[in-house]
């Protein structure tokens, strides 16, 4: 039996599937985040050096992972859309971007909240912080470009070019920032130097990472559903759906 890989590449068939998947992943995200936060706040031991302030890493580190991962996923869909001219890929890319920007912002914000009690400052021009900030700008640029273009297909393609140029640039940005910083001073504190983590801390972080991942999938699919409805509003299935749910 051969699988028809392209069955779900049309908005009409993907729309109901996305709805179901979003529901399931949303539920999974709730469970995982609940478990992760419980481990983080009640099970994991207090850190000997940083006290209770370290607990922010249960949000911070998974958010930072997701911010970078989502940019790659976004660029992957964008590139796929550019190469194969598929409609859904571009919609997925623009559906992922706000979630990616959200996690980048959360990572920066929680990092700064953690930095104040631990490093004694809200912000240092550390290589990681700086490249995360530039990643946020890349997300903003992508969203601003897509928002400025009225024609949806052109918006998808232009965004795709920008996302791919950004992907090529990310390692260059990271290394340039790293070398620039080491020229001035070594990083004041780095995660690599911290004592090895207790197993429960690590478990909490991984569970939270899965929770954020599932949330990203659910949020992106929900957003993709809205984009699909908006763009396909003149087609029969969308009209039918709108009438039925009205």
């Amino acid at each position, binding site marked *: 039996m051969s699988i028809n890989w392209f069955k779900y590449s049309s908005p009409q068939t993907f729309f109901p599937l996305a709805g179901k998947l979003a529901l399931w992943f949303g539920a999974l995200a709730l469970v995982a985040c609940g478990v992760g936060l419980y481990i983080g706040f009640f099970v994991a031991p207090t850190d000997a050096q940083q006290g209770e302030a370290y607990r922010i890493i249960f949000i911070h580190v998974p958010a930072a992972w997701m911010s970078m991962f989502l940019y790659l996923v976004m660029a992957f869909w964008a590139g796929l859309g550019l190469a194969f001219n598929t409609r859904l890929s571009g919609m997925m890319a623009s559906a992922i971007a706000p979630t990616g920007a959200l996690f980048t912002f959360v990572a920066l914000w929680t990092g700064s909240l953690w930095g104040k009690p631990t490093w004694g400052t809200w912000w240092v021009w550390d290589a990681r912080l700086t490249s995360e900030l530039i990643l946020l*700008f890349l997300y903003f*640029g992508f969203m601003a470009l897509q928002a400025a273009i009225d024609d949806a297909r052109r918006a998808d393609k*232009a965004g795709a070019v920008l996302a791919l140029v950004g992907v090529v640039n990310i390692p260059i940005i990271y290394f*340039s920032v790293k070398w620039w910083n080491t*020229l001035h001073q070594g990083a004041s504190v780095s995660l690599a130097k911290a004592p090895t983590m207790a197993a429960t801390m690590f478990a909490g972080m991984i569970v939270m990472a899965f929770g954020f991942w599932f949330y990203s999938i659910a949020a992106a699919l929900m957003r993709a559903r809205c984009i699909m409805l908006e763009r396909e509003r003149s087609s029969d299935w969308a009209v039918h759906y709108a009438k039925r749910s009205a």
Partner: protein
Amino acid sequence: MLAALRCVIHRDLLLAARRSSDVLTVLLFFVIVVSLFPLGIGPDPALLRTIAPGVVWVAALLASMLALNRMFASDHADGTLEQMLLGATPLGMTVAAKVFAHWLISGLPLVLISPVLALQFDFPQELLGVLALSLALGSPVLSLIGAIGAALTLGLRVGGALLSLLVLTLYVPVLIIGAGAIEAAASGLGGQAQLLLLGGLLVFAGAFAPWAAAVALRISVE
């Protein structure tokens, strides 16, 4: 093909020569921005000497961004761009020629005037060469990256502001390495490593940016 490229460069230079005020505006912008910093920060020579590389580089970044709007806009308005898209010369090559002409008009003057401006900052004379060299290697990269942004935002209502958002982010590595070259030279480490990196970026951007900008142009004009 080379004749076509020469023709594109010659045409752009001729157009710029006929409207030389455009070229001068960018140059004046660069001069004024650089001169504003001592007024805002204070005339302490030691401080000025420290911030000179960064100020000159940031001003060069802004000036070259200001000039980007013109790269494709007038060709788009009068239909020349469509002829270029249809023409037999590969679009990437045409774009490369246009970027080169654009750099000659808007980048090279900045490189040439930068040592004079650096003197305002009590900048050591033996480092003026490094400053000019870093700009000479870096400003073409700015034009190349900017071409992608200019092509993507071609014909959009909010083009100018959007262009700055897209392009300034991508300029970050050039800024860091370019200003770093001067600082390294000033601290006695020698700026060779950064200058080589800038050269590498130039080769990399020269190979890929015209091609990406060509793709973006086709998307914008289709």
